[in-house]
């Protein structure tokens, strides 16, 4: 049976914990959803399920961190961000502690849980927390590598993590560095900067569509949204003159917002942004939702062509 991304998350934490007694896991009644039951079975004394109480979860995680533990605390992205923002901001980040907050079911992947559970704003909120590192893995290989990087990083992080399903973008030995984007396809006419499990594959498909139209599109997996890989974005802004950001999030505040801020300040270039356009979430299948929010490969390709046409 193919592994889900959550299985990689949970197993990576078990593997890390085998050699590091500082690794702890916290849940707020979503252990089965996050897949961390394997951690509880292996290290019951280091797993704390606080029940449906996300604020307390982040507070307890902060206390554990104050004593040198490395807590990974997870919930759906909506609750990990909106419901614990003050706790994460103050008890974890302002206190300069080391809490890894995991928000699952990003954007449209919340599917049948609908608008109440569909985080389109979590990255935007988290980007406002000073010095916070924000990552969003795009496949199972990058998930494991980035979880390991997160454990090694001294400082709090927000990890936006897809839960169910698997895909393969990278070879298993691929190396990742926090804050350094990955150029998956090189190109000269436009750069597609994408993040996450849904949008990186869509961007890759969009590059194929564009290729058939005679357009050379570069594709970047921006697995670290903060700190943004400014150097890479600016290099491709100069190289291609047009950028399209692709995110499973509002186009403001997140990846698109970060790229827009950088380009405006450093090297104005044409920019199109794919993602939720100031809209709330809703119920539906992922296939339905990706069309409803105009985030498909075809939408990306069209946005790329429209952006290039302004050159």
């Amino acid at each position, binding site marked *: 049976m193919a592994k889900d991304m959550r299985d990689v998350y949970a197993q990576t934490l078990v593997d890390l914990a085998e050699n590091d007694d500082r690794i702890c896991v916290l849940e707020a009644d979503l252990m089965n959803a996050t897949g961390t039951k394997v951690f509880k079975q292996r290290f019951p004394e280091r797993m704390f399920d606080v029940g449906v109480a996300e604020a307390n979860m982040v507070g307890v995680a902060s206390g*554990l*961190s104050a004593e040198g533990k490395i807590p990974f605390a997870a919930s759906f992205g909506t609750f990990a961000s909106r419901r614990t923002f003050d706790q994460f901001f103050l008890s974890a980040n302002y206190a300069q502690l080391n809490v890894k907050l995991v928000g699952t079911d990003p954007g449209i992947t919340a599917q049948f849980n609908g608008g109440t559970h569909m985080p389109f704003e979590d990255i935007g909120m988290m980007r406002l927390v000073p010095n916070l590192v924000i990552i969003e893995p795009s496949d199972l290989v990058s998930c494991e590598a980035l979880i390991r990087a997160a454990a090694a990083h001294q400082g709090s992080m927000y990890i936006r993590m897809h839960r169910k399903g698997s895909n393969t973008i990278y070879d298993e030995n691929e190396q990742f560095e926090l804050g350094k984007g990955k150029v998956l396809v090189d190109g000269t006419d436009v750069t597609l900067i994408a993040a996450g499990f849904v949008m990186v594959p869509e961007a890759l498909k969009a590059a194929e569509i564009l290729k058939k139209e005679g357009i050379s599109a570069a594709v970047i997996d921006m697995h670290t949204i903060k700190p943004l890989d400014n150097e890479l974005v600016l290099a491709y802004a100069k190289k291609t003159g047009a950028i399209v950001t692709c995110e499973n999030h509002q186009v403001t505040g997140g990846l698109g917002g970060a790229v827009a801020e950088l380009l405006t300040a450093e090297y104005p270039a044409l920019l199109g942004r794919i993602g939720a356009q100031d809209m709330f979430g809703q119920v539906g299948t992922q296939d339905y939702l990706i069309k409803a929010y105009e985030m498909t490969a075809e939408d990306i390709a069209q946005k790329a062509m429209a952006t290039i046409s302004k050159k």
Partner: protein
Amino acid sequence: MNQEKLQDLQDKARIVRIETLKSIGHLGVGHVGGAMSIVEVLTYLYYAEMHIDPKAPRMPERDRLVLSKGHAGPTLYSILALKGFFPMEWLLTLNQGGTKLPSHCDRNLTPGIDMTTGSLGQGLSAAIGIALATRLDKRGNHVYAIIGDGESQEGQVWEAAMSAAMFKVGNLIAFTDYNKMQIDGMTKDIMDIDALESKWLSFGWHVQRINGHDMQAIEDAVTRAKTVTDRPSMIVLDTIKGKGCTCAENLVGSHNMPISAEQLEEALTALGAEASAKGGN
């Protein structure tokens, strides 16, 4: 406790009040009421109970304290300075730009502060995390937490209350500073939290209620709480907001108040501060 120890602790509490008021008075404004109401409990803990070392403020085996009502930081700063965690002169830098003594407790700025607090309701959760880590590391130290009565209106306090009992953090001893007042008025008139003992009891805690200004009662309660190892302990302190400060005692407006040079002088005189020690503005 014998008469000599009692007298000594009461005198230390008086000096803590004096230093705290000088510190706030030097600035001219501060959280006088809630700082004064916890003078006895903090004095008792730091002078007679907690295993701490001013020369090694982060030693692993120390007892921890989370002042969840972080706005009462100035009382804790006075004690830490008097104990030698940092120079007494720092006290007069309270809340000045660049100070190491901000209005609310900051673990990164002030030696001896175990947790950053200030947004009410968060400290008890952190104290639970610290207590759990203590248990994982198999250390024998205790974790103390002090929450406010108004703070007890925060929902997170009760999330924390549930989890502390569920996780059986027997090394956690918390206090509620029940001075009956909050910013907008009396707690009973704003959002009544009464029946605090039965609330904590029903959440699975060992509960005691004592006069929070009585050193002997505090010692007895902490001693009893330490014998309870299968549950967290709550000690509800009946206190008087602004206690011992002539211009603030039992005054609803004392949460965060201006204090003039004259008011400071009067308060210090009433506390028996020696003329040369008054300092102030």
